[in-house]
């Protein structure tokens, strides 16, 4: 793996640079360290940074840019002839990539030599069987153009990899020489190193911005793409969700939104009273021992991964509800996956979320308000209901809104527990589906990313992102605006 070797070589050079730079600085003053401007290790660090940082940055940029560049060059080779009515450019390109990958595999396994691969003639059967030996199955027929494009693809990719190795090593070497030349007693190594570290710190902090930018861009681009081939009004206003990968899908978001909100509502109906009362009891009544046991116990519920809740819904709660409300019992329920199943389990998941946030808020109400209320003769519960809860209300509402945003964005429980039918109905024992569940089902199929059936997932993701972000901002707004400032 040349990439690993490349990183290894650069790392080695950086480590060697530290030792050499430090040594050069010390020997430059004949071992009298007091004559150096900075501590010796800063001279070493200066070399290390100048070797590693530019070289590795170049490598990362190159790795990202090269496929895009190669893709552009190769796409230019495919003209209109290969792109017939049923096959668009993306599909042909994926053929090219597949073939190029297959040739690579074949060379790795020794079925072909690289010169054979470069001079391969167009003989579809032969290529297919050769690659079959290497364990690569080809999809469609190999045409002359695709083969040429694939060979060009490989050529460019190999050349690119070589050019990158050379450029990275040259840059690392250049940095090494530069830093070594700089090293003498007068050189302000500490200041240089600290400025570099400062820049590294800033760029680390900017990763958060990059992540948000990445999320927003990847959602926006694909959503715009989706609305170009599918009318936005249909998407937002239609009440039917019927994707068919053959075309002619009806992709209305309303049933999904309905399912999402219904399940979240049930989850909140379960979680809010339990969580709130638990928080009140823990904050106001519980002795230290009870609190020491009950609070961590509830918080275990928050640490359990959602896949566990999903399985719990699918295999335990669903069948249990089925026994009570299903055909054997009340006869309201047809299948064990239903809004009720998912909502109930999601509610359990949210209990610690509501309880620990409310607990904090209730604890933040100053003791003087309680004492004042007791002094007027109120019982403890009257104090809680008429003094503490009103004072803590904005925080509690904020906690509930955050819990709602969690519920809306929750995926695994609804994928496993809620069923797959998109419908608008009031019956909580019917199966419905949610935005998140459909994102999963639309993107895990074999659809190509150009089709509306796959792109719709990005529009759904965008809706979800906006919805949860809006709820969070709203929660913050409520907490900030209505919070009572004590003391």
């Amino acid at each position, binding site marked *: *793996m040349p990439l*690993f070797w490349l990183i290894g070589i650069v790392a080695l050079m950086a480590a060697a640079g530290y030792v050499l730079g430090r040594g050069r600085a010390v020997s430059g003053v004949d071992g009298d360290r007091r004559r150096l401007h900075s501590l010796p290790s800063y001279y070493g660090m200066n070399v290390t940074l100048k070797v590693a940082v530019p070289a590795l940055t170049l490598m990362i940029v190159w*790795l*990202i840019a090269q496929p895009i560049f190669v893709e552009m060059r190769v796409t230019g080779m495919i003209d209109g002839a290969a792109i017939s009515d049923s096959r668009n450019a993306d599909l042909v390109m994926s053929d090219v990539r597949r073939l190029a990958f297959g040739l690579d595999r074949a060379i790795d396994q020794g079925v072909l030599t690289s010169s054979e691969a470069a001079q391969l003639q167009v003989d579809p059967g032969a290529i297919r069987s050769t690659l079959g030996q290497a364990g690569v199955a080809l999809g469609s027929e190999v045409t002359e153009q695709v083969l040429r494009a694939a060979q060009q693809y490989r050529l460019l990719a190999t050349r690119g990899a070589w050019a990158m190795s050379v450029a990275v090593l040259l840059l690392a070497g250049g940095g090494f020489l530069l830093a070594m030349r700089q090293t003498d007693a007068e050189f302000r190594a*500490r200041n240089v190193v*600290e400025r570099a*570290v400062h820049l590294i*710190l800033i760029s*680390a*902090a900017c*990763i*958060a*911005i990059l*992540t948000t930018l*990445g*999320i927003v861009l*990847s*959602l926006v681009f*694909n959503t715009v793409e989706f609305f170009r081939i599918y009318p936005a009004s249909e998407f937002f206003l239609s009440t039917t969700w019927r994707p068919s990968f053959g075309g002619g899908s009806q992709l209305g978001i309303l049933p999904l939104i309905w399912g999402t909100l219904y399940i979240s509502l049930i989850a909140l109906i379960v979680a809010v*009273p*339990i969580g*709130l*009362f638990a928080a*009140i*009891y*823990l904050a106001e*009544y519980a002795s230290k021992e009870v609190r020491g046991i*009950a609070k961590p*116990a*509830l918080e275990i*519920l928050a*640490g*359990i*991964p*959602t*896949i*566990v809740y999903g*399985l*719990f819904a*699918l*295999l335990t709660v669903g069948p249990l509800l089925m026994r009570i409300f299903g055909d054997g019992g009340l006869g309201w329920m047809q299948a064990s996956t239903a809004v009720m199943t998912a909502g109930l389990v999601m509610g359990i998941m949210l209990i610690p979320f509501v309880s620990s946030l409310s607990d904090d808020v209730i604890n933040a109400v100053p003791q003087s308000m309680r004492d004042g209320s007791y002094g007027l003769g109120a019982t403890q*519960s*009257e104090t*809680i209901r008429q003094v503490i809860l009103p004072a803590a209300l904005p925080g509690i509402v904020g906690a509930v809104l955050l819990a709602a945003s969690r519920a809306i*964005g*929750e*995926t*695994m429980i609804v*994928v*496993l527990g809620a069923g797959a039918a998109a419908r608008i109905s009031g019956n909580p024992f019917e199966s419905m589906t949610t935005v*998140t569940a459909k*994102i*999963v089902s639309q993107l*895990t199929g074999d659809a190509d990313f150009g089709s509306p059936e796959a792109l719709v997932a*990005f529009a759904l*993701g965008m809706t*979800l*992102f906006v919805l*949860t*972000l809006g709820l969070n901002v709203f929660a913050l707004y409520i907490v900030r605006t209505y919070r009572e400032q004590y003391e």
Partner: protein
Amino acid sequence: MTDATQAGSMVPAKSIISVDDRTKKRHAAEKRFQAYGIAAIATGVFFLIFLLGSILFNGVTAFQQTFIQVPIYLNPMTLDPEGNRDPAEMAKVSTFGYAPILENSMASMIEAQGIETDVEPDGLDALFSSSAAAQLRNRVLSNPDLLGQTIDFNILATSRVDGYFKGRVSRESIARDRSIDAEHLDIVDALREEGSVVKRFNLAFITGSDASESRPEQAGMGVAMMGSLYMMLVVLGLSLPIGVFASIYLEEFAPKNRLTDIIEVNISNLAAVPSIVFGILGLAVFIQFMEFPQSAPLVGGLVLTLMTLPTIIIATRAALQSVPPSIRDAALGVGASKMQSVFHHVLPLAMPGILTGTIIGLAQALGETAPLLLIGMVGYVATNYPDGIASGFMDPNSAMPAQIYEWAKRADPAYYERAWGGIIILLVFLFAMNAIAILLRRKFERRW
């Protein structure tokens, strides 16, 4: 005496000694209110116990597997026709050559034990897993000297037989099952009386690889665990330095300006973005745009890194904040630069808090499933261990939660048991990680 009785009858309507109706009501309301609180906590704890109980109840059986002990005579004539005991030559006999040996050995054992049955020898393959022949073949190929001997071999029983022993499969439930008959179960019952069918600890479930849909008895978590391990290495290697550097900048160096505000708001918003959205980001940026391979632990690790960053940043900032300013002042006072005061003094003191936050963030990332669905780590049947470090990062693999999801979706109920068992393994890891975090906090936490 009469005074006393008189005094009793002279109790006024209102007194501070006796409780009036209104106060009674208020006290009752107080009691009720407390009872609601206790009930709420009890419900929460009940749910917790119910959840953990059903995980244990359903999952523990996955750690036991049924085997049938059969003496097998390894005939050199059929298994090594050349007679050279050369594994390369013997490899020509495929697993199909070994299956009849198993069937016939079992048939003769049944005869020897005097069990009467109508099942023909070639119908006995319903009792053992289709991978049993391959296991026998591997054992023979690794030790050719066994040829000509009679060995006691533990044949892996099918999931039906296994389920029959664990109570999952009953005679009623196999009525419509074409792969096994009631007569087979009669044999199993008789063999059990003879002690030839045993349940043993199932190491293969922990170390083994995933199996195809029809062989739940062979499926294991091992390869998925490796996938998770490589993913966690990526997460640890990236999110710890990036998170710590970002927090140091925001906490110690950042001037109060626009950029800092934007970063702060961004981080708190990222913490609330649904995990599936990170999956969409991974799919669009890493797989579509940068063309990283699908299902690779590297991509999974990158996505989970972005997801864990806010957690680690928030924990690290809290840890940095808790180091008192006097430490910084003292360092500056003896001539350290700002950078030196942070890296030489503040950071080491904040390290226990940072590590605790990192471990908790890693535990969250380990259990996260939704983003992995989108980058293709589900649906990939992880059957091979990666053969090197590079392939461990780049080759398609599964991960523990993705493997559990995969099993939960398969039609055979035998896989549900595996999924529960997988959850036990996952939770053991999570509890261990959280326990380490708590211990770290207890041991190194400093109150200033």
